[in-house]
């Protein structure tokens, strides 16, 4: 166990500035010169007030936002892939097998049942239907989502229930690298504790995580390092 593991994410010199072409090309700088590394079993929690750029950083790492400068390298199949320059096929492949993202909101796909939604990431990775179903059912029970809900599409669920579906959908894949954007935002204490448990299990099997948590209890329970995004803020 003493051997040194390479980082799973290496962010170097990252900058993001939004340019709003339809508002007199207004420039909104968010951060610049930002670097960080995350190794296996580490959970770096992004700290700072609202609007400081935590979500923008997270989305830039996922390839959802296009950074203005710098690189985001993710260890995928034993080699680093720079998300900021990789072609779309490669980014999708990295997202399918290596890089997971849990947002605050479930993007509901109309009319698909909860169980199907949770099974989907496994089916996309070639897991057999029976095994996918078993694992999905187990995770949904762990998250205490009532069994009566499993065959229903989550569109009409409460915020906390949708959140748990979202978490199930993301944690079922056991991604090596996970980005957590306030996954506990609309959960009560009991459910927060379950999610903390899931995060700790993932860290124990060697996942690398970057998280945003406004809830201090959760943050203290999972963070290995706090990362102050404000230090890289660009004066507007």
């Amino acid at each position, binding site marked *: 166990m003493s051997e040194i593991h390479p980082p799973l994410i290496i962010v170097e010199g990252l900058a993001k500035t939004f340019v709003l*072409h339809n508002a007199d090309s207004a420039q909104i700088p968010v951060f610049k010169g930002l670097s960080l590394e995350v190794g296996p079993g580490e959970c770096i929690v992004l700290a700072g007030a609202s609007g400081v750029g935590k979500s923008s950083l997270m989305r830039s790492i996922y390839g959802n936002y296009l950074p203005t400068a710098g690189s985001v390298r993710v260890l995928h199949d034993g080699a680093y892939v720079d998300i900021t320059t990789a072609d779309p096929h490669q980014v999708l492949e990295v997202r399918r097998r290596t890089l997971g993202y849990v947002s605050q909101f479930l993007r509901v796909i109309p009319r698909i049942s909860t169980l199907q939604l949770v099974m989907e990431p496994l*089916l996309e990775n070639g897991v057999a239907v029976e095994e996918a179903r078993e694992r999905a059912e187990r995770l949904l029970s762990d998250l205490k989502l009532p069994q009566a809900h499993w065959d229903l599409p989550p569109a009409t669920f409460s915020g906390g229930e949708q959140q748990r579906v979202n978490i199930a959908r993301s944690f079922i894949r056991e991604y090596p690298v996970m980005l957590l954007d306030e996954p506990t935002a609309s959960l009560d204490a009991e459910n927060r504790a379950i999610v903390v448990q899931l995060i700790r299990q993932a860290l124990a099997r060697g996942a690398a995580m970057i998280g945003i948590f406004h809830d201090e209890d959760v943050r203290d329970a999972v963070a290995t390092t706090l990362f102050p995004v404000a230090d890289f803020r660009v004066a507007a």
Partner: protein
Amino acid sequence: MNALSSRIESTPLLKVDGLTKWYGHILGCRDVSFDMRAGEVLGIVGESGSGKTTLLNCVSGKLPPSAGSIQFETSRFGMSDIYAMSEPDRRRMQREDWGFVHQNPRDGLRMRVSGGANVAEPMMSLGGRHYGKMRQATIDWLERVEFDTGRIDDRPANFSGGMQQRIQVARNLIHGPKLVFMDEPTGGLDVSVQARLLDLLRELVRDLRLAVMIVTHDMAVARLMADRLMVMKSGQVVETGLTDQVLDDPQHPYTQILVSSVLQI
């Protein structure tokens, strides 16, 4: 976050290079280049008149371009320039390897024969002769697209828009194509039917590992279906990238207008 991350092959299935189409002195599309791989869904978005349909028609072999090349990995001849092939070879390749789902089902269906015959016809044109087998395959496909098989012998004119579109989808997938073109496939349908049909298309694309080139002006459809987007304006591609990146962090002024113009419900 992305709509559909199916398995995507590493070698291109389709290569489009420098595609340009002029209608006399009016530009259809200019200098469009891209490639597609098996299992990949490429969305083409842009307003009316931006050249989306011109591009789709050129790539799908319906409209010879003024310049540029379109190469496709055909079952019969391997990678070939589709407009350099002989007319009979190209038509045969289109029947064997491709499907085309039109916005208006009337453009893609034969209205004077039954719904079932519409679905079975591609098998016949590829040499199927056993009536019983073809009828069974037709029924299987109609079930797959959730069509009431009790109405298999009715003519399409007696079906609702959603039912006609299901028939059209079955007709275009039954022969096992590698690449399917879709022009606003849910454009004329009301929203509840649209949602159901989109789900169905997503499932079929994943299960059959189809490559799909889909033209739409509906950003929600693009987000749900496409892995990758090309944004067109005035006949040119102004932005391309991962679907969620193009929609959530658009770079080009036109894409920013397009994305910010979507009404929220």
